[in-house]
Each structure stands twice: as C-alpha cells, then as structure tokens.
C-alpha cells in the first residue's frame, strides 16, 4: 500500500526535498572517496588538493541539511515515520560528513606518499576502496528505496572490510620489520586503510539507520547484524 500524502502538502514537498538533498550529498561523498583513491594510485598531488578543497562543499551540505531538518522538526512536529525519516536524515547527514572527511585524510596521506618512491603496487587498498564505495552506494539506495534487506546486507558486508584491514596491517608490518626505512610509508598506507575502514563503518551506521527508519527497531550495537528484523 502506497504511503498517503500529507494533508499539509507543503510538508510532502519538504520531505521530498530533504531526501533529494541527502542523496545529492551521498553521491558527492561517494565521488570524493573514489577520487581520493585514484589520487593515491596515480600519485597526483595536484588532484589531491582539489579533492581536499571540495570537502568544503560537503561541509556546506552538512550545515544546510541539518538546518533543514531542525526547521522541519520545529515547524511540523512530525510523528512516527515522518519523525524517524527526519531524524534518520540528520544522522545520515552526520555520517556522510565524516565519510567526506575521510576522503580528505586519504588525500593528505596520498600527498605525503607521492613525495617518496612507491613502496609496493596497491592491490588490497583499491579492493577495500571498491568494497566501501559499494557499501556507501548500497546504503544510500536502501535509504531511497526504504529497503531493509539491502540495508542489512550492507551491515553484513562490514566484516569483510574489517578482515581486509587486518590483512593489510599484517602485510605492512612484515615490510616494516624487514626494513625500517619503509616505516613512514607503510604507516601512511595503514592510515589510509583505516580511513577506508571508517568509511565502511559510516556506511554501516547509515544502513542501521535505514533499518530503524523502515522497521522502527534499533539494530545498533549488536555483535552480529541480524539476518532479518
């Protein structure tokens, strides 16, 4: 059964606009992360600066979306699904903003790395980047379609990213043990892996919020994501 429109139609317009703004921000942050990883692979310091500069756009979106949510809470005093939608949008907004910061951090480390010879060809880091980007895309799709199953699959995917981080960590430790001259570069790659792992965590948070939006039940802070809600 389709959701009925509000008696106050203006409120429907505002809700639609909010959804659009969150998606727009999500798309922008997705691209920031993709660009940041490309900067790392191509060792392109000029491009890194551009990505870092574009974080201002994300920050501006964050401020505007939050203001919009606060205004809607104050003026419409929403309840039930509408209340969950607006509070979820606020939290997704905060997670996206932090994920955007991670793109900036990746670029900062990539710039530092570009000043030294490449330690090794990147294999696992780009793989991890693809996984986290997919999670970010899926959790935003789940938000738009209010798809609880897709959101839960994002939560489950987080374990694979965590495992990959551990693998990268072990591999780079062996480099550092063998040759201390690699430490500064290896550490920076570990940082970058950690940033990507954080992005996956933000995607997981968003997915959990989508489950709350759809089902009204919190699945946060569980040891394992549930298979169904």
């Amino acid at each position, binding site marked *: *059964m389709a*959701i*009925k*429109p*509000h*008696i*106050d139609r203006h*409120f429907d317009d505002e809700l639609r606009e909010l959804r659009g703004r969150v998606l727009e921000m999500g798309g922008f942050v997705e691209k920031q992360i993709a660009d940041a990883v490309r900067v790392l692979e191509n060792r392109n310091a000029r491009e890194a600066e551009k990505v870092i500069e574009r974080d201002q756009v994300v920050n501006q979106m964050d401020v505007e979306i939050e203001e919009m949510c606060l205004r809607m809470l104050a003026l419409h*005093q*929403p*309840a*039930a*699904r*509408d*209340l*969950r939608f607006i509070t979820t949008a606020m939290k997704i907004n905060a997670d996206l903003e932090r994920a955007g910061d991670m793109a900036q951090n990746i670029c900062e480390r990539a710039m530092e790395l570009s000043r030294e010879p490449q330690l090794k060809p990147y294999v696992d880091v780009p793989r991890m980047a693809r996984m986290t980007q997919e999670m970010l895309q899926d959790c935003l799709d789940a938000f738009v379609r209010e798809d609880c199953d897709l959101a839960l699959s994002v939560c489950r995917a987080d374990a694979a990213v965590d495992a990959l981080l551990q693998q990268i960590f072990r591999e780079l430790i062996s480099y550092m043990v063998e040759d201390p001259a690699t430490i500064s570069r290896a550490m920076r790659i570990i940082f970058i892996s950690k940033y990507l792992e954080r992005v996956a965590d933000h995607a997981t948070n968003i997915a959990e919020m989508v489950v709350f939006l759809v089902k*009204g*039940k919190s699945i946060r802070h569980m040891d394992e994501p549930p298979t169904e809600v």
Partner: protein
Amino acid sequence: MPQAQTADVVLESSNLSLWYGSARALSSISLEIPKNQVTAFIGPSGCGKSTLLRCFNRLNDLVDLVRIEGDILYEGRNIYVPEVDVNRLRKRIGMVFQKSNPFPKSIYENVAYGCRIHGVKRKAELDEIVERSLRGAALWTEVKDRLQDSALGLSGGQQQRLCVARAIAVEPDVLLLDEPCSALDPVATAKVEDLIHQLKNDYTIVIVTHNMQQAARVSDRTAFMYLGELVETGPTQEIFTNPKMRQTEDYITGRFG
C-alpha cells in the same frame, strides 16, 4: 516499557458498545486504564473518545436513547449494575470539561461546594480542603488573596485549573479530562499540562485531546480511536514513534484518512 497488564488496573472496559438511538458510537471497546498513569484518547472528531470517557463515570446516563452493552469495571466491580450509587461513583471518578464551567459563586465556594454536599461542615476543615485543592491545581498563589471574589472573574486558564481544584477537592481516584486545554492559550495550556504531570502521582488520569502533541507530552499510554473502534493502544512513546497500525500512523502523521 510499562505495560498496562503489569501495572494495577483501575478502570477497565470490556467489550463495551454504545448506541445513541440506532447509531453505534462505540464498538466492542476493551481497554485497561492503569493506576497513577496518564492515558490519552486521541482520534478524529466523532470517533467516540469523549463518549468512551463519559462512560467511565456514567455521564451518558443523562443522555436520552443511550444504550450500552458490555461492562466497565472500576476496581474490579461493574459500574453499570443497579446497586451502584452514581453520586458516590462520580465522587471517586471526577471530571473536567472542555469549557471551564465554574459555578457563579466565589472561588472558595466553587472548591468547597462538593465537600459540603458530601457532608463536610466545619469551616476549618473546609478551609484546609480549599487550600490543599487549590495548591494541588497550581492555582493557590494566584488566588489566595481573593478567595471570596467571583470565580467568573478568573482568566480562562485559571477557571480551568479551578475546575481541576473543584474535582480534586472531593479526593477522587480518577480524573477524567475532556479536552481540558482546547479553549486555552499556550501559556495556560502549559500550566495545565504541568499540573497533569504533578497530579498523576496521586490520581489516575484519562485525557481526551485533539492536540496530539499534548497527548505525546502528557500521557504514559495512548489509545487511538477511529469510527467508534479502538484501533491501537500502547505506551505513548511507541504510538508516536512506531505505531503498529497503519490507521494510527496516518492519523498522527497528518495524512489523508
């Protein structure tokens, strides 16, 4: 979450149906009112919430052509049996109406009146009851120096709190509030809401309100009614954040019904 089942139940309607002539106003309502909690009835106009409220102290008896089926239990006893003394019942279950209706008498007499009827004669005792009731209704400091003035000179919000004082003067168990704030401005409304929060320590309160935010603010449990049926009842927080029934959701989020 506090559930009605786990708390003491003061009032209970079971399969309660009511007709005004041939029009059915309530359909098989089964509901428990837990002790020392605030229960709110919400729903669109004509859904039967005031009718249900008025069943709890048999005010519908005064309406012609009313026919009632089913039971209302007050402390486990059916109140719709012939041996019930309706005046005694209404002393235990007081009511405050939508429009404040003080008697055209002094502030003091408005509060003392019910106690006089129930046989309290000593001035000192009445003085004490009047002060305690006015304090209980958060009105004492505003009127203590003009108790002999006419109650009709009070503001709307003060008059409504006077009606609450009058209701609690006879020390009821239950207070039924039928849209107590609908004629009040936001400040007076806030005072009455604050009063409801205080009163629930001593009384069980049932409130009918059109203002859903008010139901959300003051009540512990909310019952949503529609077309004479009880659609959903539960802890207020759940009803307003995650209602189970689609009809409830549509109503509280302001969608076309």
